[in-house]
């Protein structure tokens, strides 16, 4: 596996090249957290509010920042001063960037574990080729994933090592070491609570697989329930949560911490609409409003100002369609997960089925969740990579989803330099993905078709090119920036939402059909 380490090394070196790149406010967010954890006793961590970027990740992440800050002072102690808002000296940048790159080593290790334990090599002679060998291709797709790359190493976040923890727990599931899997996932939840999106899959799988056994024909055997297994499972999970939240519960700060973690005051959609169901919902509302006004069915006075100017304010108020409450989104999300969870329970198909469950839960949360960030698409894309060497149709959906999902991250990057970097990187990674998966599944290509894709899918994906040309050149060229400043973003969001929804439906159907087929044969 010399090539694996070479790939890991090359990707790491590339991350070093990106050190001076554009940084989003998340850079300042994490610098501020370094300062908070360094300069305050931990009972003040979730109370401090000098900066608007208050600590809003769970306690284990705060401790992670605390340990980082102990190293940070050797680089530049000034970054650890609470009042030094927006401080970004050269050494601060170097330190923070390096911390992401070094933390990624956990991810690389997890990928190594996955590809050596869970991916079977196809033929011996392919062993060294990064375009052919399934294990290596999986490794490249994971380690050099476009989304992680630009979100972590340009935009600035720590998704890499968190994905590493997720992957570690999935590997443990593949190995049947369920308690360790539960441990890794609990730790992960206490680092970043966005992973609650996929917690239902873990809950159902571990309960079903760890605490119950199956009869030989795959049915649930209720009698096999093991209380001691449930006890140990619960102990592991509760132990991790107590280590993390215990001190804050003891200090009576639990409520304070939770309000920081779950700020429901934010709007239904993020400033830029993540390409999900609500983006389509909002867009439909907006379109209906315009049509309504034209046909004199709606009087212009009832329409909120923002909706008419095309502004994308945080709180988008609906005119035609009913407004949506956080509770409603939660209910819809859970309903969307339910079939997947039921299927996991009644018709479990081992680790690969579990990964499907994870993907479907992530999908449901992304599609219907409250205030979803566009970055959450990575929560769907990354686990899906684990399936692409299984069924050809999984690979097909992955190709559409990863292309459109990665493209939907584009609005995060708008500075002149990075505008070009993102295009180069997306082109490279997309060509690589199509090339490797296409040749692995022996794709026959028809006229106007991308590998493995149908003609409409190919046309849809190619539509990205004119869309991008429009939003970056034509739109400003036509002088529409003043009048319709948010039109390109809206178009992108809706365009991508169509593709993501399509992939969701298709993936659900594929996972569901799978079950019926299996029932027929048995």
């Amino acid at each position, binding site marked *: 596996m*010399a*090539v694996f380490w*070479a790939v890991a*090394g*090359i990707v790491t*070196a*590339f991350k*070093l*090249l*990106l*050190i*001076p*790149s554009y940084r989003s406010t998340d850079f300042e967010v994490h610098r501020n957290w370094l300062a908070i954890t360094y300069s305050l006793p931990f009972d003040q961590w979730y109370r401090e509010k000098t900066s608007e970027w208050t600590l809003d990740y769970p306690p284990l992440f705060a401790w992670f920042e605390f340990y980082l800050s102990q190293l940070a002072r050797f680089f530049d102690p000034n970054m650890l001063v609470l009042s030094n808002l927006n401080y970004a000296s050269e050494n601060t940048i170097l330190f923070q960037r390096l911390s992401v790159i070094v933390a990624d080593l956990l991810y690389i290790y997890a990928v190594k574990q996955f590809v050596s334990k869970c991916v079977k090599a196809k033929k011996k002679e392919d062993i*060294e080729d990064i*375009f052919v060998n399934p294990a290596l291709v999986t490794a490249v797709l994971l380690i050099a994933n476009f989304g992680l790359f630009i979100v972590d190493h340009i935009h600035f976040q720590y998704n890499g090592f968190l994905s590493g923890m997720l992957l570690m727990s999935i590997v443990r599931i593949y190995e049947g070491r369920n308690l360790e899997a539960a441990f890794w996932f609990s730790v992960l939840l206490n680092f970043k609570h966005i992973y609650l999106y996929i917690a239902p899959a873990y809950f159902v799988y571990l309960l079903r697989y760890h605490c119950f056994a199956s009869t030989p024909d795959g049915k649930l055997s209720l009698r096999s329930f093991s209380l001691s297994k449930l006890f140990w499972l619960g102990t592991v999970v509760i132990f991790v949560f107590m280590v993390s939240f215990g001190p804050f519960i003891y200090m009576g700060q639990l409520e304070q911490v939770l309000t920081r973690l779950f700020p429901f005051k934010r709007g239904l959609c993020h400033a830029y609409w993540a390409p999900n169901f609500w983006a389509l919902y909002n867009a439909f509302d907006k379109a209906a409003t315009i049509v309504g006004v034209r046909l004199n069915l709606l009087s212009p006075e009832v329409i909120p100002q923002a909706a008419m100017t095309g502004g994308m304010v945080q709180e988008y108020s609906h005119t035609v369609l009913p407004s949506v409450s956080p509770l409603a989104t939660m209910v819809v999300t859970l309903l969307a997960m339910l079939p997947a969870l039921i299927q996991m329970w009644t018709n479990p198909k081992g680790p690969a089925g579990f990964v499907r469950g994870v993907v479907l839960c992530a999908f449901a949360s992304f599609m219907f969740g409250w205030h979803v960030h566009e970055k959450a698409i990575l929560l769907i894309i990354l686990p899906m990579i684990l399936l692409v060497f299984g069924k050809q149709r999984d690979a097909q959906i992955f190709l559409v989803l990863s292309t459109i999902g990665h493209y939907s991250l584009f609005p995060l990057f708008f500075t*002149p*330099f990075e505008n*070009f*970097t993102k295009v*180069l*990187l997306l*082109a*490279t990674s997309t*060509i*690589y993905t*199509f*090339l490797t998966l296409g*040749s692995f599944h022996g794709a026959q290509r028809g006229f106007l078709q991308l590998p493995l894709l149908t003609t409409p899918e190919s046309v849809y994906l190619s539509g990205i090119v004119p869309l991008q040309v429009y939003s970056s050149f034509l739109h400003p060229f036509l002088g529409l920036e003043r009048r319709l400043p948010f039109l390109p973003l809206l178009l992108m969001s809706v365009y991508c939402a169509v593709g993501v929804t399509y992939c969701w439906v298709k993936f659900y159907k594929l996972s569901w059909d799978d079950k019926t087929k299996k029932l027929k044969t048995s």
Partner: protein
Amino acid sequence: MQFYAKLSVVVLSALAIRWSIAKHGYSGYNKPPMYGDFEAQRHWMEITVNLPPNQWYKNSTENDLLYWGLDYPPLTAYHSYLCGLVARWINPDWVALKDSRGIQNEQHKLFMRYSVFIADILVYVPACILCFLIHHSYSDNNKLKGIAVLLLQPGLALIDHGHFQYNSISLGLTLLATWALGQHLDLFGAFFFCLALNYKQMELYHAMPFFCYLLGSCFQKGISHGIMKLMMLGMMVIITFGLCWVPFLENLESTRSVLVRLFPFGRGLYEDKVANFWCSLSVVLKLKELLTTDNTVLLCLASTLLMLLPSSLHLLRYPGVQRFKVALINAALVFFLFSFQVHEKSILIAVIPACLLVVEHPLVVTWFITISTFSMLPLLVKDGLLIPSVAATFICYEVIRVTLHPLHNKATWIRVLHTLSILGAIILTVVSQVLTPPEKLPDLFTLMITTYSFLHYAAFFVYFHYLQFTL
């Protein structure tokens, strides 16, 4: 189809690396009053768009030659002129006569970076692809590997997209010429090489092999065909040069003013600390104190010519494409090691043709590439390019290591020697960055780096000569 998809992955990754390097620092940033090569190139745009061609190379009140006066051949001037026009179209302040000196802002940097990037894409990248793509004896995989090495070779990317120069044009043209000779399109070869020479006079390092190869191939054709070919080649050279020099051929005086600018013998023996023979010799023997400048020039000239003789005569007698490629490396190394007024960047002129041999001789090539980037370390560090230099060198080294297996089937002593040599470079890099040199010897680490590199270059010089004579 698959091959082209793979090729585009390779090319796009290389471009992404270049573009990421471009985000880093460049030479002379925040260093008034002279700044650096970045400012020099910008200044040439300023001069060429504002003054008529016959004033470009002449000192005047508008054109102070002491401030980065144009000292490259006409093609560079024309290229500057083109870039200058675009710059003026985007923002006239960038090339305003005199007022634009030392301009520093993000937008202008972006423009300059794009100009290098475009030059790279238009000349160097196609040349790299052609060199290996249209080459009958390589398998598809080897073609890809060769292209990857030429594109990932860190020195050129760091100097052009980091430090800031347009070497990719002259080196790309030389590669095109080499490719043309390989395809037995000798006239095109001569044409491209003349263009390269007219872009950067440093390409004279390669002139001898081109001359000997072409002349040798004329000899081999028999008398009548040979003379015919020689005349065609001569015509090609004269016409190309003539066209490039049109605005400067009005009278002898204007031609002379350009030539004086191109070959400034007034400067020192070597610019900075360089890993060549004279600089390394200075550790034990201070030539500068023993000889006058004129004598030093003569000494350099004599030793360079003397050292050029073996490989040139050999090529003249046995002109062959493969031998020609090795001779390109040898000639460039001779110039780098022995000539007058050498820049540390000039080692690129030897490294690029060496990359053409990477499929057949992966070990010596990867070794050469690594040491050459290492030898430029003091310069790169000055430009704030330490991290990208290390990263880009590592990427290239790893790519060659896992695709071409340079140490495969090599004797143990070679493996050990190679490992020690690379380890030594790593240690020297770390030491030079971590420790402060003693006050009495502020250049200690720089001299250690150049001497260490010189020892390697001397060995490569011997090895490549051996290679040429045993081909």
